């Protein structure tokens, strides 16, 4: 750690990990509700478990991004953070807002929560991923704006690199697009149209800038290759991401009301969206093979390469699988979608945050890398989580393909619920893989407590 203010990253990383654990608990519950439909009913209806699962996901990823920023921006800008106090204050504000909101979901009915938070006066709730009460959404805006201010001040008074400018551009874009969460037209078609400006332009736009910048930073640190080369690759990755991803939003406009020409624009542009993910693989392996030094943090290198490969599979391959209009006509809103949602979110955003934590956490504790034993433990968790997530994806894809054949691509379509019964076996297998994933999470937690005394320092 070069600057003492980088230490504010630590609570952000710890909160991210804690919320990740919570996310998995609710995932397991839903996985069971898929096959034992009345499990925990009526105490925890499926929709509540789902929104807790997905909201925890978004919040822990945001915590991870922010922690990453507090770590890498001072180092890139070559100066202390503008205000560590503000960073800590915002940490608590974000955590308290998040936890109160989750408790609200769990302990009062959703309709009641909408009522007491005044949703009737400015309706924004009840839309997928944007379920938060208005005050929570406003809290998020305040936290993100304070965060951006703090980092902008740091960078403006310090060194400007491709890594910190791309990172900040991504975050400013994230904040700007989130404003569409406050816009909820009465007209469902327009509502859906702009809803995707938050969801798609986040994961296939602004977040990719953050992903690319974090990826470039860790690569630079682990391999010691020339900064100019790293920054060139970063520009190529984020450039191709935006050039394909912005109009690639059209892959969501096929069937929800916009005109048919989006079937062409959306299919064509989104077909190029795998390119940045593919470039990331080339970049990572090329840099690791041409590294200038052998960094003692081997497990961080594993996470880094893993992120490149898994994000390409989850976003690139599984995204492409369903992105062409003639295919999407059948797979839209099926288990195939869920398969892609899982592998892409895990492979890209969960893994890049875990990469950053793996690299930065030892540094924040004053050592270059963890002991060999701790690293091996963490590697086990890497493989357990990653391989089981691949299986979760494969089982959901199988479920989705059968679903499409029985319910849609046939002259004798069966009703939804009948089809669900027929594919239950895949859901059982998904739950099995999810248990392995959970073991991976436990091993991950354990890795932080292995060999506390023996430390590698260089």
């Amino acid at each position, binding site marked *: 750690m070069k600057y003492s203010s980088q230490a504010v990253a630590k609570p952000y990383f710890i909160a991210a990990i804690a919320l990740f654990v919570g996310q998995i608990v609710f995932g397991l519950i839903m996985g069971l*509700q*898929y096959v*034992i*439909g*009345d499990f925990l*009913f*009526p105490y925890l*209806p*499926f*929709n*509540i478990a*789902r929104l807790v699962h997905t909201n925890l996901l978004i919040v822990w990823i945001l915590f991870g991004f922010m922690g990453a920023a507090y770590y890498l921006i001072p180092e890139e800008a070559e100066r202390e953070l503008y205000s560590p106090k503000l960073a800590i204050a915002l940490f608590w504000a974000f955590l308290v807002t998040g936890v109160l909101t989750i408790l609200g979901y769990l302990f009062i009915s*959703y*309709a009641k929560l*909408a*009522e007491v938070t005044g*949703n*009737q006066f400015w*309706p924004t*709730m*009840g*839309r*997928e991923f944007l*379920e938060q009460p208005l005050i929570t959404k406003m809290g998020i805006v305040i936290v993100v704006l304070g965060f951006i201010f703090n980092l902008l001040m740091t960078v403006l008074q310090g060194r400007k690199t491709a890594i910190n400018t791309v990172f900040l551009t991504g975050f400013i874009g994230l904040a700007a697009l989130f404003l569409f969460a406050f816009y*909820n037209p*009465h*007209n*469902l*078609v*327009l509502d859906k*149209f702009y809803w995707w400006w938050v969801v798609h332009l986040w994961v296939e736009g602004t977040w990719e800038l953050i992903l690319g910048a974090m990826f470039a930073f860790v690569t630079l640190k682990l391999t010691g290759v020339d900064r*100019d080369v790293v*920054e*060139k690759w970063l*520009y*190529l990755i*984020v*450039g191709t991401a*935006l*050039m394909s991803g*912005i*109009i690639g*939003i059209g892959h969501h406009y*096929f*069937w929800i*009301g*916009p*005109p048919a020409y989006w*079937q062409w624009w959306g299919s064509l542009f989104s077909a190029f969206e795998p390119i940045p993910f593919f470039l990331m693989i080339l970049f990572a392996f090329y840099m690791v093979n041409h590294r200038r030094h052998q960094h003692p943090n081997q497990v961080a290198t594993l996470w880094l390469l893993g992120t490149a490969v898994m994000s390409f599979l989850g976003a690139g391959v599984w995204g492409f699988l369903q992105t062409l209009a003639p295919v999407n*006509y*059948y797979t*839209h*809103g099926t288990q195939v979608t*869920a398969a892609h949602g899982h592998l892409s979110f895990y492979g890209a955003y969960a893994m890049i945050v875990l990469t950053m934590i793996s690299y930065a956490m030892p540094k924040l504790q004053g050592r270059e890398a963890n002991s060999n034993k701790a690293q091996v433990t963490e590697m086990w968790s890497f493989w357990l989580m990653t391989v089981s997530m691949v299986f979760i994806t494969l089982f959901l894809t199988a479920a989705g393909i059968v679903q499409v054949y029985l*319910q*849609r691509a046939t002259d004798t*379509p069966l*009703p*939804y*619920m009948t089809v669900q019964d027929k594919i239950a076996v895949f859901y059982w297998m998904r739950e099995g893989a999810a248990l392995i994933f959970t073991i991976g999470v436990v091993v991950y937690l354990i890795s932080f407590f292995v060999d506390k005394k023996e430390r590698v320092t260089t």
Partner: protein
Amino acid sequence: MAEIVTKSMAKGLYYGGSLFFILVFLGLTFHTISLAIPTRDHRDQLNPAVVAGKLVWEKYDCIGCHTLIGEGAYFAPELGNVYKRRGGEFVKAWIQGQPTHVTGRRQMPQLNLTEEELNDLVEFLKWSSEVNTENWPPNVEG
């Protein structure tokens, strides 16, 4: 390959390319929003009941279990076309009759909707089923 593309070329691609496609996207958006969608969403029928029905839909988080025109959760039947599949009376009776309490079967909660909320909701689902969706879903089962 390192030499073919320089850092400043890559930087130019990032800034120039992104800006160009943002502008194209805004142009397409303008066309879609102000010229195309108005001819496809039958907004003339967007009466107060439909608007109120959408709020009911949101207040009870139906999207957390169901899809609506293919978006939402995949745990329960598609509802974008449920008006065509089942009709308004069935939908009202169904919602009032929940939960089924069939052991092991997926459950929909009793949401205690008022008569007015039920009527608005049905108007909203009717309106949604009449959006021009390019013939999606492929058949009535959703």
